[in-house]
Structures are given as structure tokens and as C-alpha cells.
């Protein structure tokens, strides 16, 4: 079957490191947006990524409006919206519960994952919408779904939005799992402490037409470890499989990949397995880095936010350095500690989630 090519033609984001332009400056300057916080857990200190005082839902609309302004569209009336989120409106429910100590006035529709698409639909009037919720791979899976739909010619325009707000449930939940870092996270570092929960919004317009500013969404794939609910397969089988399939889906060889944008949360389990997967799969040792040292882990938004970063890396032809790295645990992988200018044709961006839910997306400079 003849597949339509797929292009990312406009995007914008907001994270604790600012908008996309500010984020890329921060990444290259190795300036983290994480702050050390005790407001969520008075008894525990945690590194968190907040874009406060920006309010989450108004920021969601403004980020989306910026994508529309940058796009070749007058409106989103003929655009499918695909949201990837793991938190949805839990923060809103928490605020009501905190105030009233009761569930009575919680509006279920404001609590669900679909509150994000409902909010955007009210403002922009999309043709249709979907919400994907697979924890930390949510918006990476939304990118994959967008690619498939454009491939098939089912839609001309798809807006992928990854969005998750900070809330007590996630901060305290990750604390209960013992994976939160009290400091700014240090992905791939030997003796790293853990991850930083963060909030983020990223929106990307994916289309079947090429523009002057396009980045190609070349391939994507997913896999499931089916190994353990919270720990990845220690032999990295699922992570390797999804990267390999995504590269095949793009019609490429592993040696075509010029940069690996890692999931790299800073937890012991993730980073060890991801580094092993990259070491095993790529014989040419491409540069690998995690930008979560700058943005924190934006959970369901991470795939879309890191898609924006991957597109920017290709546009700027400049590899993102690994911030906060002094002694890598895995010495066999290529973790650049400074930004590297080089020809970057293809970038693979990884997203992994609990349950061994793995997704990889390949982006390329347009030929």
C-alpha cells in the first residue's frame, strides 16, 4: 500500500524551561528549569518542574493558538486533535477536594483525560478528537497515531497535543514508589537519585503536505515488555524492539540515526536499560542525551515535548548535550556533555512507560 509522507509543520511548547525558543537555549546552555520544592510534600523535598505562574488550561489554549498562528491553516475546523495525557483534570478535582473535603462537587467531565480535548475543542472547534493515555508514552503514542492516520490519508491535518499538569497525585505517587529525586535529576549518571516530576504542554501540527519549514515524521513503533509492572526488561528487549521497528518503519538502517533523544528519566531502572538498549542496537555509537535534566519528566506530555526538541535539533543541526553528567554509569554509550554541531539527518526519540510500554518516533530532515 502506498503511504502518504508525514510532516511536522508547526509546533510550540511550554515547560519549566519556558517556551520552545527558551527551552532550546536552556538545553544548549545546560540550564535546568527544575526547582527544589516542598509545597507538595511538606515532609519531603523534591525537584519539580513547574511553569507557574502560568495557569495550565489557559496555557494549553495559548500554546495551541501559537501553533495555529505559525501554521498554514486559518482554523482547526478540518483538523483531528489527538491528545496524549496521563493526568487529565486530576489537578482540578484535587483543588475542589482540598477546599470542600468532599467528592460531591467534582465534575467528572472536568476530571477525565478528555478534559484537555474538551477545553481545546471549545476554543478551536476541531473536526474530531481522540485521547491516548498510556502514562509516560501517551503523547508519543499520539504522534504514532497521527503518523498512521496521515499515512492512510484518513486526515489531512492532525494536531498532537501532549499535556500534563503537576498535581498531588503524581508527585506523591512517584514519591511513594521511591523514584523521586530530592535534587535536580541527573540522567545516566552513576549513582543517580531519581526523577523530577514536571508539567509540560507541547503541540505539533502533523500534515500530509510539505512546507518550507517541515520536519519529516518518518517512522514510529511501539512494543510491550510484558515483563514487570514497574521495572523494564533488564535485557532491554522491549526498548530495542520498538527502536528497531521504528527505524524499519522509517525505511532506514540503525546507522542512519544521528542522535538518540533518550527517555532518560534519571531513575536507576530506566536509564540503565535504555543505555543498554542503545549500546546493543547501534553499532555506530550515535550521540545520546536526555533533556529531562532541563525539563523534568513531563509524564504524558514528554513524548510531544521531546518531539519538539527533536525537530529543533534537526533544524539547528546541533545535538543537545547531556546536562548534569560527570561520571556516566554506562561508559559504552556516547553521552555528549557539550552541544555538538554536525550534520543531523535523522533523530530517534524514545518514550517508555510503566508496564513496559515502549514507543519510539523517528524524525528526519526533509529531502
Amino acid at each position, binding site marked *: 500500500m502506498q503511504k502518504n509522507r508525514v510532516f511536522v509543520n508547526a509546533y510550540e511548547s511550554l515547560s519549566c524551561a519556558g517556551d520552545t525558543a527558551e527551552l532550546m537555549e536552556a538545553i544548549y546552555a545546560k540550564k535546568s528549569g527544575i526547582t527544589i520544592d516542598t509545597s507538595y510534600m511538606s515532609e519531603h523535598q523534591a525537584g519539580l518542574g513547574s511553569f507557574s505562574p502560568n495557569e495550565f488550561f489557559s496555557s494549553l489554549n495559548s500554546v495551541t493558538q501559537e501553533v495555529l498562528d505559525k501554521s498554514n491553516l486559518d482554523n482547526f475546523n478540518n483538523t483531528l486533535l489527538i491528545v496524549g495525557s496521563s493526568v487529565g483534570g486530576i489537578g482540578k478535582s484535587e483543588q475542589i477536594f482540598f477546599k470542600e473535603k468532599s467528592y460531591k462537587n467534582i465534575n467528572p467531565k472536568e476530571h477525565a483525560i478528555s478534559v484537555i480535548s474538551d477545553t481545546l475543542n471549545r476554543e478551536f472547534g476541531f473536526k474530531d478528537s481522540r485521547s491516548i493515555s498510556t502514562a509516560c508514552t501517551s503523547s508519543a503514542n499520539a504522534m504514532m497515531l497521527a503518523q498512521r492516520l496521515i499515512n492512510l490519508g484518513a486526515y489531512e491535518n492532525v494536531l498532537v497535543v501532549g499535556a500534563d499538569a503537576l498535581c498531588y497525585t503524581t508527585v506523591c505517587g512517584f514519591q511513594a514508589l521511591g523514584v523521586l529525586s530530592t535534587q535536580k535529576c541527573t540522567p545516566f549518571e552513576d549513582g543517580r537519585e531519581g526523577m523530577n516530576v514536571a508539567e509540560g504542554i507541547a503541540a505539533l501540527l502533523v500534515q500530509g503536505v510539505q512546507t518550507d519549514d517541515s520536519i519529516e515524521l518518518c517512522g514510529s513503533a511501539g512494543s*510491550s515488555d510484558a515483563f514487570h509492572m514497574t521495572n523494564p526488561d533488564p535485557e532491554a528487549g522491549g526498548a530495542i524492539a520498538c527502536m528497531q521497528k521504528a527505524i524499519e518503519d522509517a525505511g532506514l538502517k540503525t546507522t542512519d540515526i544521528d542522535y538518540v533523544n533518550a527517555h532518560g528519566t534519571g531513575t536507576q531502572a530506566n536509564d540503565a536499560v535504555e543505555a543498554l538498549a542503545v549500546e546493543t542496537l547501534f553499532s555506530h555509537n550515535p550521540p545520546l542525551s536526555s533533556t529531562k535534566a532541563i525539563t523534568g519528566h513531563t509524564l504524558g506530555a514528554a513524548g510531544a515535548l521531546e518531539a519538539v526538541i527533536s525537530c529543533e535539533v534537526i533544524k539547528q543541526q546541533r545535538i543537545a548535550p547531556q546536562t548534569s553528567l560527570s561520571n556516566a554509569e554506562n561508559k559504552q554509550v556516547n553521552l555528549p556533555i557539550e552541544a555538538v554541531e554536525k550534520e543531523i539527518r535523522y533523530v530517534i526519540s524514545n518514550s517508555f512507560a510503566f508496564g513496559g510500554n515502549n514507543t519510539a518516533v523517528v524524525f528526519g530532515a526533509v529531502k
Partner: protein
Amino acid sequence: MIYVHNVGSVHREEGEELDVKAAWKMVSPAMIRRTDRFIQLSLLGAYAAIGEKELERETALYMASGQGNLAVFKRLRDQRYIKKQPPKPVDYINSLSNTSGFYVAQFFKIEGKNLNVSRLGFVAETTLLLAQNDLVLNKVEQVLVGGVDELQEPFSFTRKTLGISDERPLGEGSNWMLLSRKKEGSLASLEVLKQAMGLDELKVYLQQIDVTSQLAFGQRCSKEVIEMLLGDKKHFEVSCGFYETASLYLLNTFIESGKGELIFVDNYEDRYRVVKLNC
């Protein structure tokens, strides 16, 4: 065209009893610890469809839910705000949308893509469409599709969540089907129309279908619309309390009992989606 190879359902009406834990314990006593009722319901429905059959390792799993695992969310809230305790790790993990999918994948030893789709309105249809897209594009060989919604008390809250009237009976279900591109040995062919339609477009579409086709309608379709669209076509009906993924229960019931072509129409707000089955 894609084909349905296995179907299975676990379903109950409001007022009926269903001891999911006991039923699942009979199947897999080792997989009780750390799983909650929503996860066990998911597993039980998938088992009803697949049984002991060995699935291809690369089988993908796409799971849909309208409400998700609301019970665990309430437990987390109660732990934090009423008991003033930190969340139990097992409850936090079980609150993640893809946890049930993990357990189903682990039980059947399948390592393909594992997705969870959550929304009110068309959640079953859009999940089937996802599977159809990936099968048509040769991205996967087969997909295990499931829809799971758990009956939650208080029922008034559930009705409010679903946006339905206080008089409407509720139900719960875990309905699964195995889809593949292979026709051989299949129970039915299935096609999800790619685009949602307005009512006028739907009327035009229905004028073109075969005179022998049966029509079925989703639970959000109003009586007036059903009467208007049905005309002289045979109406395939399944009695079922309301839950968001009940469309899959109806489709499975037709596959298990019906013959011929079924045109299933579902509605959400002012849009309509169509699924075609041929048995």
C-alpha cells in the same frame, strides 16, 4: 478488510452480582496479588475471548474505557485526604491507564504495541479504528481489542460521569475481540468507517446499504433518531445497562448469534460513527 477471530464478553447488569476476583482466581490464582477489580475484570473478559489459545508474540493490545479505573482513584484520594496517608504504591500503579493492559499482555505473553484509549463517546469505535488502521497498514499482524468499564458506586455519580438520566439502568462489561488481516478461520469481517458523520450524511449512507442488512444502535442514540433511521430494516437489539464500551458487547453478541450484515450506528453529541460486521 479486517477479520474477527475470537470474541468474548463478561457482562453484568446493575443489581446483579459478579465476583470477579473469585472468577479470575479460578483462572490464574498467581495473578491476584496487586491486581484490583478493574484489572481482574479486564483479564477475565480477555480470557473469555482467548482462553488458553497461544497468541502470536507480536500481537498488539488496544484497550478502551469510558470511565477508566475510578475505584482506585477514589482509594488514592481517600488515602491522601481522609486518612492523611501517602498513596499506597500498588494503588498509584493501578491508577495508571495502561496498568490493565500490562497485566493482559503479561498473561497472554504478548509484546506488541500496548495502547489505552480513554474518552466519553465513540471510545470503542475509535479503538477499533486504531486497530483497523494498523492492520491495513501492515503495522501489526493481529490486535487484541478490549473495552472495559466497571460499575461504580455511588451510581448517581456514575450517571453524572456518563451524562445519562437518573432512571437509566447501568451495566458493566469487559468485551474483547481478536482482529487480524487473515480471513481464514474468521468469525466475521469488520469495517469501521474512518470519518464521523452528521445526521444528514448518515441518512444518505444508510439509503445505500443492502436491504437485508440489520441495523443496530449505540446507547447514546435517541429513540427518535432510531425510529427515523430504522425504516423497514430489521433492528438487532441487545438488552444492556449503560456503559461506555457496551458497543463491543453488542458487536460480540451479533458475532456469536447473528448471521448476515450488521450496520452498527453510534452517536455522541451531534456526530455518528458506523461499524459494519459481516458474519
